């Protein structure tokens, strides 16, 4: 054991509030929640651009009819890998990164409850994605049956099949470990005085998200294990020839998959619920209603899975049940949208980049919600199923609901993390380019879907050519404009103007804004006072 020298250096270290390890060990052996949060966010950014590159290739191929750039097999692999990488590699790790950074400092805890488990849950991820992405190199190329992995198509993959299954297992383990850590931290490490109904909404939404993760991840693990045993061990869970039922896979996949959608969106609700009050200079309207609405959405997410599979031949009673249950989700979601709007009502609004992205979230997510209601109607869904209308719908929900909320959260908390303010002008450019070209990219896909263009095809009839070209142009500009995001962060870290005081935004409330900027490496080693908690909990 190396002994710590008993020198004055320690006293300085305390004043700096630092004492962090240096070099590669700081990251490989990281147990500090801020370091692990940073690693999650950097990893997520890399995966976002990896998945984005796949999307650019998809849009390039679809720029005009015919096969120009890739063959049909590679195109199918691109759509599959784009989905897997964006969902499991970009969005989910970004949320876990924000949770790692913010939850301990928002509840007054010195760190996550299980820091070594936290380290493990992060370091599983890079290996999972190296495994998944290296499947491009094996015979038969990468998985090509869609991110939903439906049998029997998925069972026909080559060497990439076991790689996919093992990678999914690793991502699942990582998610479960992260979720358990979040649950235990929120339940057991809240500072004295930080009652459940004083917690910031980002913490609430993450708590509920963690329950969803814990509930549904074993279902995904079981489902992909059954695929594995069907493929290699001669079982017939989903093999009709052996007495199995391929539709059953769809049931259990979507029993996981629909809550998964909310896993990606609920933390976004939390972020937006922090940002809108801060830039409206008003407390959040209906804090408790927001909590209950989030819990209701989470509950309803367990009983709507079959709206993803209306066309498989369900009994009428089941169709009706799932249609009405799906429509019911509009009620708590409507409560949320109303409360965000009411928070802004007669507020002193300003439009800094976090607020702009939060407003884009509100507006665009609502459009995605409305197209979701259209898809919930069984007779209409029979027409829309597997068309570009569905693609437009879920991108409106996931890109604006998750990606925009993540970007809003980063722009909101970045000054707290690094103690410097970013270039507002560039960030506003980032916003306007993103918001405009997001719509150029995805809105025409509604028209394409309504006109009958099927999804997951590399070639299409000439009648769809114009809107596909518009969509591709939107995609290229939207994709390229995202390069501004890491540049803005890099520039901020390197040379951003220093933030004076604890609050980067005058309307910001919460324990994180009681800490100095940048947030000390070790925060809340002495719990916050009641007055600090009360100031933050002015709902």
């Amino acid at each position, binding site marked *: 054991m190396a002994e710590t020298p008993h020198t004055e250096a320690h006293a300085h270290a305390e004043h700096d509030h630092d004492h962090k390890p240096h070099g590669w060990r700081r990251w490989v052996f990281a147990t500090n929640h801020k370091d692990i949060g940073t690693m999650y966010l950097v990893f997520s950014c890399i995966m976002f651009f990896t998945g984005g590159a796949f999307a650019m290739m998809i849009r390039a191929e679809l720029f005009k009819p015919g096969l120009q750039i890739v063959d049909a097999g590679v195109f199918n692999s691109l759509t599959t890998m784009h989905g897997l990488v964006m969902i499991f590699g970009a969005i989910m790790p970004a949320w876990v990164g924000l949770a790692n950074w913010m939850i301990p400092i928002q509840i007054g805890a010195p760190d996550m409850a299980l820091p070594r488990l936290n380290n493990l849950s992060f370091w599983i991820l890079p290996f999972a994605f190296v495994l998944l992405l290296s499947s491009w190199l094996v015979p038969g190329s990468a998985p090509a049956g869609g991110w939903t992995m439906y049998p029997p198509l998925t069972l026909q993959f080559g060497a990439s099949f076991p790689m996919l299954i093992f990678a999914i297992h690793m991502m699942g383990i990582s998610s479960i470990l992260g979720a358990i850590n979040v649950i235990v931290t929120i*339940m057991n490490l809240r500072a004295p005085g930080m009652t459940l109904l004083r917690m910031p909404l980002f913490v609430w939404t993450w708590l509920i998200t963690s329950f969803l993760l814990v509930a549904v991840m074993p*279902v995904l693990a079981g489902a992909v294990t059954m695929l594995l045993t069907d493929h290699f061990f001669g079982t017939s869970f989903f093999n009709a020839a052996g007495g199995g039922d391929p539709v059953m896979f769809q049931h259990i996949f979507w029993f996981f998959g629909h809550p998964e959608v909310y896993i990606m969106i609920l933390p976004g609700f939390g972020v937006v619920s922090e940002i809108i009050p801060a830039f409206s200079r008003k407390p959040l309207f209906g804090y408790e209603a927001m909590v209950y609405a989030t819990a209701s959405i989470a509950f309803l997410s367990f009983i709507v899975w079959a709206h993803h599979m209306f066309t498989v031949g369900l009994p009428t009673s089941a169709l009706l049940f799932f249609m009405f249950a799906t429509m019911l989700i509009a009620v708590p979601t409507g409560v949320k949208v109303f409360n965000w709007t009411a928070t802004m009502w007669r507020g002193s609004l300003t439009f800094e980049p976090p607020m702009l992205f939060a407003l884009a979230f509100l507006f665009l997510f609502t459009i995605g919600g409305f197209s979701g209601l259209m898809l919930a109607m069984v007779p209409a869904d029979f027409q829309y199923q597997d068309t570009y209308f569905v693609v437009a719908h879920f991108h409106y929900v996931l890109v604006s609901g998750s990606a925009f909320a993540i970007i809003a959260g980063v722009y909101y908390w970045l000054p707290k993390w690094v103690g410097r303010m970013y270039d507002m002008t560039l960030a506003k450019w980032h916003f306007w380019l993103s918001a405009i070209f997001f719509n150029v990219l995805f809105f025409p896909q509604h028209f394409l879907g309504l006109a009958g263009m099927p999804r997951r095809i590399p070639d299409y009839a000439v009648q769809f050519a114009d809107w596909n070209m518009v969509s591709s142009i939107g995609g290229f500009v939207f994709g390229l404009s995202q390069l501004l995001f890491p540049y803005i962060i890099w520039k901020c870290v390197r040379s951003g103007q220093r933030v004076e005081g604890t609050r980067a935004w005058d309307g910001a409330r919460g324990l994180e804004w009681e800490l100095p900027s940048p947030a000390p490496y070790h925060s809340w*080693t002495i719990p916050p006072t009641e007055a600090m908690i009360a100031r933050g909990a002015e709902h």
Partner: protein
Amino acid sequence: MEAPQRTRQPVRIVICPNCSLSLRGAALFFGGLCLFCLTLAGVLALMGMWPVLPFAGLEMLLVGWALHASLARRYRSEIITLTESDVSVESRDRARCQLTVFQRHWAQVKLRRPASQLHPSRLTIESHGRQCELGSFLTDEERYGLALRLQRLIGRINESPSLASGPK
């Protein structure tokens, strides 16, 4: 110049981990979670998809372990009492209560960094070949802060700084 001695009362430091979850709350929470997840997995198993069940079971074991590991903190406490002559450490956990007394003049505080960063640091008070570990339930950063405070109060070996000027 030495600070004027305002008081000679002992300095008492109580270290106990913050636990916002009660045992009853944890039991209810864990029971509810198990009920929900295992019922779900059980229904799927009855429908023939039994591989979901072992994964759900394993996950509940992991949740149980995580709660247990985090809740184990609530039974731990250490009371460090410093007088002009002595340093006493009363360590309590679920099963025992142990009192260790050192002569303050000869006692020293040591924070040992582990050989591997996978292991936590260790904070001890030592004197005359005896040692007593402190704050093993704290995070590394909390332990570091405690070490700094104790080093100021206890001083190096063969030192006894005035308690009157030290933090309470």
